């Protein structure tokens, strides 16, 4: 991967430690979807979006997004990792499939927003990032998708507002509180290995 | 042969290795010391998992700073927490992951995995999920996964700390029977009987270097002197 030469030290690629962190957070996403699944209305409410917000807030954009992608890949492959033991291609083509795709973009957005405040993670900025990336971005993809699947835009909007929104706002706050505590207690170095400008690429 | 030249390393401003120079040529070498004495850090410098702040670690003249990948293939490493060393879903997959991409063909890989599982009493568990093994079996699997790559030197960082007495004996016996050089970090002092050389570490330095009996006696006295109260000196 020939990089653009930059004058300062940057981090590039992924180390095996990053790979392990990605795998662990993808597994955490699966665990968060299991014991707390609360069926409310047509859409199951779980702690899963909490995981989608936590991964990029703690691991950063690159590792966080890859953790979400890894989780979705295993789900798509047929492991029953979604609430209620669902999995396979079905959830992706169902009425809430757009939310699953939205997770990837949302995680990326949260990761990029989080970067600006590090090394010190502040709750309110974190909460704002989670709302923007974990709610607004995800809904921007999820609601139109539902609108097509359910055949009606208004129905899709009502559903997301009443079934998802209250829980998601609480989860955004919860994720920011957890991320702040984790950053304080156990800061994780950035992904990749430090590469000096113009260094030969050996990764 | 492994050689350390003036190795110094610090963590968060605390010196954990102070100017250590050593030649590690003996077949069986023990390394003992209290928690935090620096022995785990020293062990991790031997295969380049940690590159020291200053000084050099050499394997037959190759520096871990520049040849980490090659050195890691020649120096195997076993950790104390078996669960964290198992990186693949099933037993056989975990053993073979270190062989992938190293040249051997599919058949050779299968044959080597079969051999090593048989030798370490795991033949019946080939396709089992690795997380369902018992604690002792997990450590055996960790050992097997390292030995399958046939390293010349094996560094073991307290491989028996989390095990019960019976499994400690099993792992000890396995280590004793190995052809390769073994560098063993341990809190189980009786394991060291019959070793060629035992090093004692304290506060980042080697404070004793000699025969097992003398080293153990030295270490026991050191711990008795430094312990504020009886029975608090070991984990």
């Amino acid at each position, binding site marked *: *991967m020939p990089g653009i030469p930059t004058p300062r030290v940057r981090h590039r690629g992924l180390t095996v430690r990053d*790979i392990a962190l990605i795998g662990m*957070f993808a597994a955490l996403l699966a665990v968060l979807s299991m014991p707390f699944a609360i069926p409310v209305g047509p859409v199951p409410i779980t702690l899963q979006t909490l995981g989608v917000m936590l991964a990029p807030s703690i691991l950063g954009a690159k590792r966080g997004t890859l953790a979400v992608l890894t989780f979705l890949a295993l789900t798509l*492959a047929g492991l029953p990792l979604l609430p209620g033991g669902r999995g396979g291609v*079905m959830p*992706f*083509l169902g009425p809430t499939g757009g939310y699953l795709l939205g997770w990837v973009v949302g995680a990326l957005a949260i990761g990029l927003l989080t970067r600006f405040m590090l090394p010190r993670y502040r709750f309110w900025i974190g909460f704002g990032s989670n709302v923007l990336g974990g709610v607004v971005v995800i809904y921007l993809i999820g609601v139109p998708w539902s609108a097509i699947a359910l*055949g009606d835009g208004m129905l899709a909007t009502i559903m997301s507002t009443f079934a998802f929104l209250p829980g998601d706002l609480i989860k955004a706050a919860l994720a920011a509180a957890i991320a702040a505590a984790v950053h304080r207690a156990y800061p994780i170095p950035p992904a990749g290995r430090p590469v000096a400008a113009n260094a030969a690429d050996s990764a | 042969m492994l050689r350390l030249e003036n190795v110094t390393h610090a963590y968060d401003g605390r010196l954990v290795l102070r100017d250590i120079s050593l030649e590690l040529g003996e077949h069986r070498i023990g390394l003992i010391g209290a928690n935090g004495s620096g022995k785990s850090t020293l062990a991790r410098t031997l295969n380049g998992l940690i590159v020291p702040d200053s000084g050099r670690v050499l394997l037959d003249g190759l520096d871990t700073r520049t040849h980490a990948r090659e050195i890691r293939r020649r120096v195997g490493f076993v950790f104390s927490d078996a669960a*964290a060393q198992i990186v693949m879903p099933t037993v056989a997959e975990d053993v073979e992951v270190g062989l992938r991409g190293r040249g051997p063909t599919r058949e050779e890989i299968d044959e080597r995995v079969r051999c090593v599982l048989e030798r370490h009493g795991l033949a019946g568990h080939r396709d089992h999920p690795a997380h369902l093994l018992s604690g002792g079996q997990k450590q055996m699997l960790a050992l097997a996964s390292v030995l399958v790559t046939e390293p010349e030197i094996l560094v073991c960082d307290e491989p028996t700390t989390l095990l019960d007495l019976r499994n400690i004996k099993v792992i000890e016996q396995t280590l004793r029977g190995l052809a390769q050089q073994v560098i063993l970090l341990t809190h189980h002092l009786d394991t060291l009987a019959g070793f060629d050389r035992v090093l004692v570490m304290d506060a980042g330095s080697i404070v004793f270097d000699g025969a097992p009996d003398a080293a153990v006696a030295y270490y026991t006295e050191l711990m008795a002197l430094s312990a504020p109260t009886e029975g608090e000196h070991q984990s």
Partner: protein
Amino acid sequence: MSMLGLYVPGDSVLHRLPVGAKLLVLLSAVTAVVAFADLWSALGAALAALLLYPLCGFTFRHVWRVLRPLLPFLAVIALFQALVGDGATAVRVCAQLAMAVLLSGLVTLSTRVSEMLGLFERLARPLRYAGVRPDRVALVLALTIRCLPLAASAWQASREAYVARGLRGRPHLMVVPVIIGLIRSAEAMGEALAARGID
């Protein structure tokens, strides 16, 4: 976690088709029916998808398992359209959803998890030119499956510790130590991978 997942063993034509072909057919069929937006073709497609189940050796139980998560949505659509008063649209949308989910179910039920993961690894190969290492894709997928029991038991253990200490309320305090513990385990696994010469 069994690697069997939702796969149901069998030897129908569908079981033997390569997974890439199945996904391609699935996506084109769903896109076509949704884009066409016609009541009768949607109903026909849903019925055809349903009839494929017995033909491929699946039973009513499988159909039920695939369709059940969809039922609340179908109910909501019916209710909503009853208020708005457009019955034809309601039936068409329900048929489209049922068709999409039934066809996806056929793909998932007839495809091994490992086969699907193999497809992802092949699809990742061209990403080599963008700096992605395809062997890393396989590694992270396997590593995640390995981490599932680890994460589940850490969660369980922490919940027990939380209850044992008689703590109540503020459950997020329970989550922080779990996550730090998982990060530590992941770092130890990374170190073990590096020690085995995988980097």
